[in-house]
């Protein structure tokens, strides 16, 4: 039972990393959003699995939230935004895809290196899970940094959140996981609303592209 359980858990975690790479690879808006939906599905699956093997029913709630909010609601909203802003064409990453991929691989290696010295007594599945979660987080950050487009950056942020949830649920018996995930979903929702409100076409930098250099209180 345990071996299998752990392998399945690994499967999901590794799958999440894989999907993160897919996210990095995607350069079409619609494709990006869909891939993110997949990301969310994988997360909710892994959370559900954790709930099952840890006999922790409350984690099902987290899984449900992840599924409903991030696999359906937000992607739909994002689709509408994209349409409204009329940017469902290709988007250009700042650095080339290949380079991004390379950096991503480096990050995964880094996260594994960092996790290596952790003694196994921290929990059998913790170490690898943590390595995966950390890679997901770093990849998400990489995405936020390399992409110009507000929506893709939000997606990057949300993938970070998925990584966090992965880690949180992987940490066996951690209290408040549900509350925290709820709080975080609110955060994400607010960001999305913000984008929606401020009509952020391009760029995360500013609520209005014209204000980019004027309104810093100071002139450069």
């Amino acid at each position, binding site marked *: 039972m345990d071996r299998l359980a752990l392998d399945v858990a690994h499967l999901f975690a590794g799958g999440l990393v894989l999907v993160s790479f897919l996210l990095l690879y995607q350069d079409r808006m619609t494709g990006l959003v869909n891939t993110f939906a997949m990301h969310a599905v994988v997360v909710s699956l892994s959370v559900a699995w954790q709930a099952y093997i840890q006999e922790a029913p409350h984690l099902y709630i987290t899984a449900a939230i992840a599924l409903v909010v991030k696999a359906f609601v937000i992607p739909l909203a994002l689709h509408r935004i994209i349409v409204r802003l009329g940017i469902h064409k290709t988007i250009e990453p700042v650095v080339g895809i290949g380079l991004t991929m390379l950096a991503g691989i480096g990050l995964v290696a*880094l996260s594994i290196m*960092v996790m*290596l010295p952790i003694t196994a007594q921290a929990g059998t599945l913790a170490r690898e899970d943590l390595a995966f979660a950390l890679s997901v987080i*770093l990849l998400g950050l990489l995405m936020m940094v390399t992409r110009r487009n507000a929506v893709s950056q939000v997606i990057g942020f949300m993938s970070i959140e998925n990584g966090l949830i992965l880690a949180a649920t992987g940490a066996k018996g951690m209290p408040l996981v549900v509350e925290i995930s709820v709080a975080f979903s609110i955060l994400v929702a607010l960001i999305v609303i913000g984008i929606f409100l401020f009509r952020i076409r391009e760029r*995360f*930098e500013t609520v209005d592209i014209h204000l*980019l250099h004027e309104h810093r209180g*100071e002139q*450069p």
Partner: protein
Amino acid sequence: MAVEGPLWCIAVLLGAGVAAVPAARHRAAAAAVYGVCLGTTLLALAFAASALLAPDRYAAGLSLPLGLPWLGAHFRVDALSAFFLAVVNLGAAAASLYAIGYGRHEDSPGRVLPFYPAFLAGMNLVVLADDAFTFLFAWEFMSLSSWALVMAHHRRSGNAAAGYIYLLMASLGTLALLFAFGLLAGASGGYAFEEMRQAKPPAAVGGVVLVLALIGAGSKAGLVPLHVWLPLAHPAAPSHVSALMSGVMTKVAVYGFVRIVLDLLGPPEWWWGALVPLLGGVTAVMGVLYALMQHDLKRLLAYHTVENIGIIFIGLGLALAFQANGLQASAALALTAALFHVFNHSVFKSLLFFGSGAVLNATGERDMERLGGLIHRMPLTAFAFLVGCAAISALPPFNGFVSEWLTFQAILLSPALPQWLLKFLVPAIGALLALSAALAAACFVKAFGVTFLGRPRSAVTAQAAETDRWSLAAMLAFAALCLIAGIVPGQFLDALAPATQALVGAHLPLQEERAWLTIVPVAESRSSYSGMVLFTVIVLAAGATTWAIHRFASNATRRSAPWDCGFPDPSPLTQYTAGSFSQPIRRVFGTVVFRAREEVHMPPPGAAEAARLQVRLHDVPWDVLYVPVAGAVAFVADRFNKVQFMTIRAYLTLVFGALVVLLAVLATWQ
């Protein structure tokens, strides 16, 4: 009844400062505040005098539960601090007396009255402090209050900048002293001076401490090249404050140096005795040359303070050199010379600033090119100022000469020093000292001659009236003191004996029992000087001659127009001006020291416009040291400033980068 007395005085001063904040509007406030200051400082002066006469009675220290919690504020009066306490409060009392009259003309009393007593309190605190924290606290507090006073007339052009540079330099000095004390205290963190005396730092540390002390105390005293703020800040303040800053605060800085280097630091290295006098000599000559080039009266005086600080540091440095070679007696002579010059300079420099303040009040002019002939309009001020000029030019029988004479005697003892460098250096320093003394005479012939003699160069000057009696009282009192300290120096030198005894373990032979009030630094056969005899003989000779001539030869006098080789010009503008007076000396030294350039614009024959002569002087230390530093700060600020105008993604990249770097560090760490 040891140190409490002065501390109570300080408390009263602080109280007066606080009380002055609301009361400043009131008409009588100025008189009240300055009156209180006068009384308090006189009291403190009495304490200091009695401490000088009986040092042991005052040795007991006192610790108050203030400042650093586990350290407390330590206060103590030993021979050295007693002497400086006397100097401080003497100057402060005179300035307060002067200000009772002078302060009436202050147009913004609210910016002066609260800070003046605070300034006095600060200077007293520095001298009394017996631990590093209290010392630095008082030191910086003194700077801050005097900064406020410099900013009193902030709307006059240049004053704000002067205050800014002043505060910056003061803080730099405080930082240097902070590090010096950090080194002295060591890792154990013993900040009480007593512990520092016990701890014997290694030689290398000692050298660093010396340099730091030179930076810290030197920046406040005006040691070249740290002098740049001084000629800007001192004149900017109201004149009685200028007198205090130039006459007294610089001496507090000297106190800091003596306290750290001669008292706390332990036995000196011989090279200290080479570095310090060299700095002193350069400072002396540079200072007096700067002063000669000025035509703003107060700025001239301020620059001249730099010269005297140089002379004092020559004495201190020689003391270090002798001390390092175990020549206690010679060290005592050099130190006595320096300390006595500290006292003298505080007296006549304050006197001169009082005079310049009186002139400023009477004419509203600081520019000597617009003054002249004031000896007719304000005779008493002129007389006092003249005495001050003679004293500061080191002319017998006044006090300035005695201290410089002692310094020369100390220099003449230096062949006893074994080190070759010193053998070469000391005569050169002697030459520098002699040069600066002679130039000082020229400088003050110019100052007095252009300001008070000749014919008035402007209408206001022609209408000037003698100043009020308070100011006159202060000035005449100090003029008298200049003479007294000049003709009976023995008593003053004996008062310094305990201090030198404590610092270098020896003191001058006591002078009281000498005949003819002669002072003998080393031995009768070697050198001796009796201002009393000289003074009486000269007075007798002059009196006798005058009497004889008026009695037996003619005493008829006739007034007429000046002859002036037959073609006198009625316009006072044909007189020699300050600029033209210093022109020969500028030609001799200026081109080297100031990179002076003279440009003559001579109109072609027949052209109507006037010919113009333009003189450009450079302050070399400023160009070489300060401008580059300011440039560097501006450069870095500009580069950093770009970070203010980046995009959010760039900021995120920063965060991301920081995270990755830290993780990498972590990965490599394990």
